[in-house]
């Protein structure tokens, strides 16, 4: 192996981007150390109830709201494997028209469908992407009934969960181990190739000498629970701390060029619907279909469900809707997600521990699409036989007729009344050759710096309009291989 290949690499974060980077580089022969802020949890501790899960697997215990005119609930993982431990594993490739847009608007090189094909194939193989086995759960069946009644295009979305037994524990780690999260797949593979994962190790700052990044400053938790501030030297640092933490870490370290200025999200509005028949949503996998008829403006799909989550969803109009809790077994949850073309930003706070302040201003277009999405989803669910639809909008406790529903095709939902959430954030450090809008080049090398790369959801140039994990992994793989190739060629 050449001398350069033995160079030391620090990867910050072990989620979809970080684990892919670490595994690819370790397998290519590099000496890789991964710093992960969260802890390594044994599989026995997976699948706990929502409250324990929030404490164990989520950043800030799941309390990381996005502020703005309309506050948006946002969560992300903070554990070995990152958000892939708590996500639902829905898998999409980046739509070809989106990749072309990235080429046209960001001058993103080597990103056409053919270029990405091998990387998607690799990622899909690693995570065993496959459709859910038959029979589909009741909540999916009523959803299909509604979509067919409306005559809309839809697809069953494949997942990274081959052999899913549908015990509905996605949001607090898959107890059965069926979900092929990073802790089950790429992290063991990276370790087998020699990468070392330091958990409970939070990178607080990047160290640099002029424009050369030389390592990181990190808070390290020791086995006995004590912690220390440590300096970790490296020849190359890959920051893969996720869409909110990567820009925050970069900016804390004085790296600000197009960093954290362009956060994008998929804002989601959730609804619950009560049927006459039991759906048993709390003990089965969430609805597996997505309506594609209105893509790219909006997507409609199934949301995670437990009685706690249902209570949260109903809590906007609790005095009127709480009785529905008695019928929890006949209720399911769905969402309307929009592409999101509002403006967002991430800034580390000047005070305290420098935790990021995440902002997003919902655009009028977002709100219009959300309103129309509510009209369509409610119509669909009523067509499927729902007796009542409960949107998470204050002042609209129930929709009982299609006439009530279609009102929102024309009217705008009141801004101050909608309760929005999201689990998809990206584009806070876009990549591409356009210096006027990108933080890093097409392969994640941060503009103006030596030895510094970014390789996670923050690099997507803008909203992909689909669940992002697949795209994050394919781009991360592509960038890591490009790096290895560049090093090999000196």
């Amino acid at each position, binding site marked *: 192996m050449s001398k350069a290949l033995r160079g030391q690499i620090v990867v910050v974060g072990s989620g979809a981007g970080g684990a892919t980077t670490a595994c690819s580089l370790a397998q290519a022969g590099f*000496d890789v150390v991964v710093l992960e802020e969260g802890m390594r949890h044994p599989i026995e501790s997976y699948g706990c*109830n*929502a*409250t324990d899960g*929030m*404490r164990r697997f989520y950043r*800030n*215990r*799941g*309390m*990381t*709201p996005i502020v703005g005119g309309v*506050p948006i609930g946002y969560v992300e993982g903070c554990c070995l494997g990152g958000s892939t431990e708590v996500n639902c594993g829905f898998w999409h490739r980046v739509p070809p028209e989106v990749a072309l847009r990235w080429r046209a608007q960001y001058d993103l090189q080597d990103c056409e469908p053919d270029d990405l094909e091998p990387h998607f194939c690799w990622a899909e193989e690693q995570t065993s992407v496959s459709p859910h086995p038959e029979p589909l759960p009741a909540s999916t069946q009523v959803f299909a009934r509604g979509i067919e009644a409306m005559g809309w295009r839809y697809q069953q979305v494949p997942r990274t969960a081959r052999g899913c037994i549908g015990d509905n524990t996605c949001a607090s780690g898959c107890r059965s181990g069926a979900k092929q999260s990073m802790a089950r797949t790429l992290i063991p593979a990276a370790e087998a190739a020699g990468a*070392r994962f*330091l958990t409970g190790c939070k990178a*607080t*700052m990047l*160290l*640099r*000498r002029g424009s050369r990044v*030389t390592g990181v*400053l990190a*808070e*390290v938790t020791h086995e006995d629970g*004590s*912690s*220390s*501030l*440590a*300096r*970790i*030297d490296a020849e190359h640092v890959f920051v893969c701390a996720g869409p909110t933490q990567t820009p925050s870490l970069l900016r804390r*370290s*004085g790296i600000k060029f197009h960093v954290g200025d362009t956060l994008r999200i998929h804002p989601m509005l959730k609804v619950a619907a009560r049927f006459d028949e039991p759906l048993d949503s709390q003990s089965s996998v969430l609805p597996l279909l997505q309506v594609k008829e209105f893509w790219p403006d909006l997507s409609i799909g199934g949301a995670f469900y*437990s*009685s*706690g*989550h249902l*209570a*949260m969803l*109903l*809590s906007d*109009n*609790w*005095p009127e809707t*709480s*009785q*529905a*809790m*008695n019928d*929890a077994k006949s209720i399911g949850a769905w969402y309307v997600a929009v592409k999101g073309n509002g403006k967002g930003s991430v800034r580390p*706070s000047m*005070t*305290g*521990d420098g935790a990021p*302040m995440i902002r997003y201003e919902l655009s009028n277009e977002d709100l219009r699409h959300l309103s129309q999405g509510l009209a369509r989803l409610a119509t669909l669910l009523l067509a499927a036989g729902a007796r009542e639809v409960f949107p998470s909008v*204050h002042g609209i406790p129930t929709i009982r007729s299609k006439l009530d529903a279609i009102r929102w095709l024309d009217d705008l939902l009141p801004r*101050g*009344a909608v*309760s929005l959430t999201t689990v998809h954030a990206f584009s806070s450090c876009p990549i591409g050759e356009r210096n006027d809008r990108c933080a890093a080049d097409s392969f994640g090398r941060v503009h103006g710096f030596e030895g510094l790369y970014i390789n996670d959801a923050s690099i997507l140039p803008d909203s992909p309009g689909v669940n992002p994990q697949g795209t994050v992994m394919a781009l991360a793989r592509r960038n890591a291989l490009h790096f290895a190739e560049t090093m090999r060629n000196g």
Partner: protein
Amino acid sequence: MRYQLRALIPRLSRESKPGKMRPPMASRSSTGVGIRRITILVGFAVSALFLLLAGWRIDWTGVWAAYAHARWWPFVPLAMGCYILGHVIRGVRCRVLVRNDARISTLTASNIVVVGYAVNNLLPARLGEFARAGMLAERTGMPFAQSLTITFLERLLDGIVMVGLLVVAPLIIPVHGWVLQSVRVAVPVFGAALFVVLLCAVAPYQVVALCSRLTAGIPSVHDRLVRLVSQITQGLSSLRSLRSVASVLALSVMVWLAEAGLFLFILPCFNLAASYPQSVVVMAATNLGILVPSSPGFIGPFHYFCMRALGTFGVAEATAFSYAVAVHLAFYAPVTLWGVVAMAWYGVELGTVAAMQRAGRSLAELPSGAHPMRLITPLVRTSHEPRPTRLMRAVCEALLPAEGPSGSREAIVDRVSAFVAGQTEALPGLLRWALRVGLTGFAALTFLRYGRPFPSLSLERRRKIVASWAWGRLGLARQLFRALRSTALLAWYEDPDVVAAQNDPGHVLGGPDV
């Protein structure tokens, strides 16, 4: 010299039985010793100079006469009692300042403070501050620099209170001459120090980042500086909570109001009218004066400034000098005695201090294989589950369904409010503050409206109030309650008892009667 990683992190003795400090062996630098000798000599010279200034042209017969007619009983014991009380309050303040990192009892904290004072009384060059910081480090397991920062912070708080007292005093009694001028000098000095301290306390990451960036090119300097600055910012962490700031400020004022008793009760010994505001001014001026480096026990500057301050109230020089000597003795003797006893009890060896300071300087390799990782400093972290306040519990109870699994509602409400407290504490800084301010506003408004604190209202009334905020017309009120209502309801319906009851077909759980 390089130490093992473990050796760098003193055992967290935290209220373990008192033991000896065992300083690591360290070599002495000859320059350090030289500088210390010069400091000591200068200190003694300053003391001599101030004694000379104090005794210059004094009417010694007047001094003897003042002593001959002095009445000591019961004033001296009262004066000493006040001074000792001041030290106990200092102990409480020290406890509050280290609360984020360690738990110590008030007795231990007071002993630590007093050891510092005693060493200052016995040794030159304010070595007492180092002794106090060293003992604090040993008792709490905190790094030395962090303890020294806390000691510095205590000093700064003292200075700020004294300057504050001197600023307020002219509103109550006439204050003249140099005392007022000294305030003009002290205000900007303490103001600047306060600014730096607050900056380190509220923006620790920014300060560490700045130091790191400035020295990134010189790794050895970088690590030492980052280490020092991190420990300093950790030492100031108690200032990040408004409640702690308020309590340490209040305690600091109490310290000095108690200590003014020392100056007050010696006045009648010399047939001087006992005026509390006057004693406060004399005390503040004297204590600002003894910031001048001098011999052990502040002999010289103490007498000079005390006497001159009393002089501004028209007291004759001879009487003022006699008064200063008496106050100094009451100030010196009891605390030195207490400090020596405490040192003997804890086994503090004078001279360990510098060694401890040096011990903290070395860096260690982190035992993590071949990767170059260097430990810069241990971080002291205490993780504890936040406990819900009474208000939080009362709000949660009012948000939850009236019906609960039979017999266990109270216990579930406890668990739910503990969960909500943990969740709201986990919110990012600014939002956490906004929620706290909002809840305080909510509590204040309901108090004004109903004349009783919210938690004392009946559950029925609370439910009505909470419903009108959480689901009312006012968007801001709804936003305030959004996090609370959704986390409370989530925790309720995820609670094992509620889940079990839900699975029981006969049980009805939904439906609040709001």
